[in-house]
């Protein structure tokens, strides 16, 4: 019994260590800076919540190593062995599009953006206009993430150096700052940040590293990473274009 519990306890200690900084920061500001003691009934709720977070992180990390990493890698190997670039790219697109289109953080940003657009008289201030604007923005971002993973996978296959593409992307973004309408710029940058969720990141990373490992002449360290970078950069460009077109 004790032997079985040991790995769990080790994992939980790790999660406690991961969480300790937040607890310390919040306690410091609450007690020292704002000098407000925490009421006793609140304290119980907070301790319960922290316990849940620790358990959650522990489960997530072991699930990562048991489920998300192996399936990402095994699919990368299977596609590399099959040798069909077409199906690999279709898969890459679906993975990018599918994981982004339903992302709650993106839905929230799109809604906020529609409100701004309506206030700025870019679109009519009706619910229908706002909904269609938000939906268009969501689709734009999801498409861009789909294309981003496709380009990223192509890069791994062909062995293109990442930094030229990314720097090229930065230059495009910087130039577009001058031509895109002001209200869309903040939204565009933020939509680059919200596309990469907690489940997508491990999966996409495992896919990239798996591909770079199974394709001859590729190095998993220099070629395997970089998919997330595309998925954060391309939405910025696409959203700015969306802001210019609409």
């Amino acid at each position, binding site marked *: 019994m004790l032997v079985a519990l040991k790995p769990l306890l080790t994992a939980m200690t790790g999660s406690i260590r*991961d969480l300790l900084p937040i607890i310390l920061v*919040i306690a410091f500001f609450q007690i020292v800076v704002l000098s407000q003691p925490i009421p006793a009934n609140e304290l119980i709720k907070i301790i319960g919540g922290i316990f849940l*977070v620790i358990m959650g992180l522990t489960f997530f990390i*072991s699930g990562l190593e048991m489920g998300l990493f192996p399936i990402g890698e095994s*699919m990368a190997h299977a596609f590399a062995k099959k040798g069909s670039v077409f199906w690999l790219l279709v898969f890459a697109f679906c993975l990018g599009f599918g994981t982004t289109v*339903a992302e709650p953080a993106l839905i929230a940003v799109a809604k906020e953006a529609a409100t701004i657009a309506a206030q700025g008289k870019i679109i009519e201030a009706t619910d229908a206009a706002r909904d269609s604007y938000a939906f268009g923005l969501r689709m734009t971002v999801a498409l861009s993430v789909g294309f981003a993973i496709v380009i990223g996978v192509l890069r791994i296959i062909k062995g293109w150096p990442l930094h030229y593409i990314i720097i090229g992307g*930065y230059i495009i973004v910087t130039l577009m700052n001058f031509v895109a309408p002001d209200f869309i710029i903040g939204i565009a940058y933020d939509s680059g*940040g919200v596309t990469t969720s907690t489940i997508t990141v491990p999966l996409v990373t495992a896919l990239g590293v798996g591909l770079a490992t199974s394709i001859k002449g590729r190095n998993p360290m*220099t070629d395997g990473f970089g998919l997330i970078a595309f998925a954060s950069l391309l939405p910025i460009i696409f959203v700015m274009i969306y802001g210019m077109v609409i």
Partner: protein
Amino acid sequence: MLEWFYQFLLTFVSTIRDVLPIAIVLFGFQFLVIRKAIPNFRKIIIGFFYVLIGLTFFLQGLESALFPMGRLMAEQLTNPAFIFEGLSTVPENFHWSHYHWVLLFAFLIGFSTTIAEPSLIAVAIKASQVSGGAIGIWGLRIAVAIGVAVGITLGAWRIITGYPLHYFIGAGYVIVIIQTLFAPKFVIALAYDSGGVTTSTVTVPLVTALGLGLAETVPGRNVLLDGFGLIAFASLFPIMSVLAYAQLSEYKARHKT
């Protein structure tokens, strides 16, 4: 208790909804295109289940304990009554240094939430495996966390002072490009990835609350225009800090021999 259980179920359902499209794509392609049995299928299913349960616990715990307090804290710290001791609005001739507690909070909350970010832990584990330990799990996580902390502090300072967002982002890109030319090649892709992983579950809600709190109270700021953009800082600065981390380790290794 009943309400809590209801909340828990809601979180669980929404987590399932997040995982569902991913599962459909994965298993759809596995069965229709690859058409081969998945090795250790049972273990992978259990792993997915753990991820589901883990995320549910994690989000539920954050939502019931840390987020409400962190959000309230961001509101209280940016409130003029706290900063200018009893004034209800911000005076005309304020200096950004009045906001020192807000800036310290931005730095520390940026650092600490990044350390707890599950997707960063995932990338760090992979990077450490692939690099054969040349990139340490904790080294990468701390480098990224410092980047986020500096980024959010600077982003908060920008909202207070009101300089345009794109100046900072433009300058940041220039620095990243210069660093890329000199940084060790093996770390570049990983550094670019670090920008995207920092901003998911834990960081975004607290940082957004901070940005909105500032944009609402500082005179002359527009909530809708200035409230955005902090996330952009949190994605840009880790790239610099991870490149710098690799440059430093290389420099140290070279001067030891």
